[in-house]
């Protein structure tokens, strides 16, 4: 579980990744319902949820993965503005779909900003994630009357198809490699985290070498052994493997909700 906002823009020149929420779409929607700044900090909860006790009244909104959340043992839904009283307990259960759930709070979590962002990333922030027993500051809101208290939104991340653009080294791909990429689904390997998702299936490899150059979230790197590595929000800012494809921003949000064993396929835009 980490604190995330929309990330740390403007420090790429010294090798600092953008970080920020993996599934920005879910975060923006939750912040919108709370009438927050889109950049308000949220909790990103991966697969397993914590039990949280609120020390002050506020309002919250959940989004992203469905992790069977309850407030004082009563189930609550995603995209529902929920009033919180002092002492309320939020807990999570089984992961029903997706991989990363978000907890947005009225006016955002108020942890310190480092290099213009609250997103947790070592060595920029001191802490890598929120630990058991830790207090997370937020602003007390006694009563909040939302404009919209609940919306039904279809989850954007259920599909398997990821839309991709050609990457800077797309032209290095042979017909055989292209066919291998676009004709079959891939599986998310166990090496998947906020830095990168590696795909399990290999495609025919290559012997190209190139000078190190810039990489972005959503860049698909192609290793000589034929492995596809998709960089994500905490991913390195430069790399030396051919960048054959680039995920659309919508595809990054979808991939952020995929876990070990999930399948996905690519569609060239």
């Amino acid at each position, binding site marked *: 579980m980490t604190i995330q906002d929309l990330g740390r*823009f*403007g*420090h*790429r*020149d*010294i*090798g*600092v990744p953008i970080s920020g929420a993996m599934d920005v779409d879910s975060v923006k929607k939750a912040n919108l319902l709370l009438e927050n700044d889109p950049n308000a900090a949220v909790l990103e909860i991966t697969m397993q949820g914590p039990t949280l006790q609120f020390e002050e009244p506020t309002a919250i909104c959940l989004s992203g993965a469905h992790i069977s959340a309850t407030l004082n043992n009563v189930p609550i839904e995603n995209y529902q503005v929920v009033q919180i009283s002092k002492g309320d307990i939020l807990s999570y259960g089984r992961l029903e779909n997706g991989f990363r759930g978000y907890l947005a709070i009225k006016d955002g979590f108020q942890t310190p900003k*480092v*290099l213009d962002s609250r997103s947790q990333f*070592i*060595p*920029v*922030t001191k802490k890598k994630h929120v630990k058991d027993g830790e207090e997370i500051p937020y602003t007390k809101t006694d009563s909040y009357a939302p404009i919209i208290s609940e919306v039904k939104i279809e989850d954007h991340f259920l599909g398997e198809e990821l839309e991709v*653009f050609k*990457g*800077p080294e797309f032209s290095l791909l042979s017909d055989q490699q292209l066919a291998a990429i676009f004709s079959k689904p891939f599986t998310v390997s166990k090496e998947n985290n906020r830095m990168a998702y590696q795909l399990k299936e290999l495609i025919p490899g290559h012997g190209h070498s190139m*000078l*190190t*150059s*810039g*990489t*972005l979230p*959503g*860049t698909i790197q192609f290793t000589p052994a034929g492995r596809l590595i998709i960089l994500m929000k905490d991913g*390195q*800012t*430069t*790399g030396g493997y051919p*960048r054959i494809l*680039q*995920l*659309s*921003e919508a595809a990054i949000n979808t991939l952020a909700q995929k876990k070990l064993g999930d399948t996905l396929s690519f569609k060239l835009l």
Partner: protein
Amino acid sequence: MKSYPITIKPFGERAILVEWPNQVEESILADILDFMDAFKELGLPGWEMSVAYNSLTMVCNQEHLDFEAIKKLVLDCHSRQAATKTKRIQHLWQIPVCYDLEFGIDLEEASKTLNLSPDELIQEHTAHQYVVYGIGFLPGFMYLGGLPTGLEIPRRAEPRLQVAKGSVGLAGKQTGVYPQDSPGGWNIIGNCPVELFNPKAEEPCFVKVGDKIQFQKISRAEYDLHKIEGEVGIYKPEKTVLNA
């Protein structure tokens, strides 16, 4: 100033990649830095740029990027960059390194492979100025060029799961400093007590692309002193202006 042909490629929805000829050359780097100065002078909001050897990645955080419009703007800016008023300052930094075997865990083996004594290796490593061709991979990690061929050595067959922060390594045509604990396959020959990335500092990374660095051999006692000076915030690395 020499000007080179550039190519511009789209890189997803919000970025472009500008490429110079595929070589590691100081004159190419100078052309890239001149372009960056000229582009910054346009005062367009919401851009971040990072250099790596012969390329510049330009990312925009505005809503939509019109590739054809930005391509035209970049080409125009590159053709007129000689008129830029901004004069960037480039520095030569003396970066202290303790080459004691306690830190330089691969120094003896690397020396043998290179047919040098450890002292000769250290002398060669500290005799040259290295150009900073990029900062990336990890926060504060410098891509350095200009390693003498006599110090080119393959990566270790098996990378280490953990290389200590500050470790100074050799691998292929590269030498550099690990700015934080990290897995790595370079041959470690010493350790640098200076923080190359400090998010609390006014300038989190004091070295800039286009600067040069020279390693300076220090004793264990000086290493400890610099480390303490760094912790209390009074250590200032020695620098000289290159293009005054």
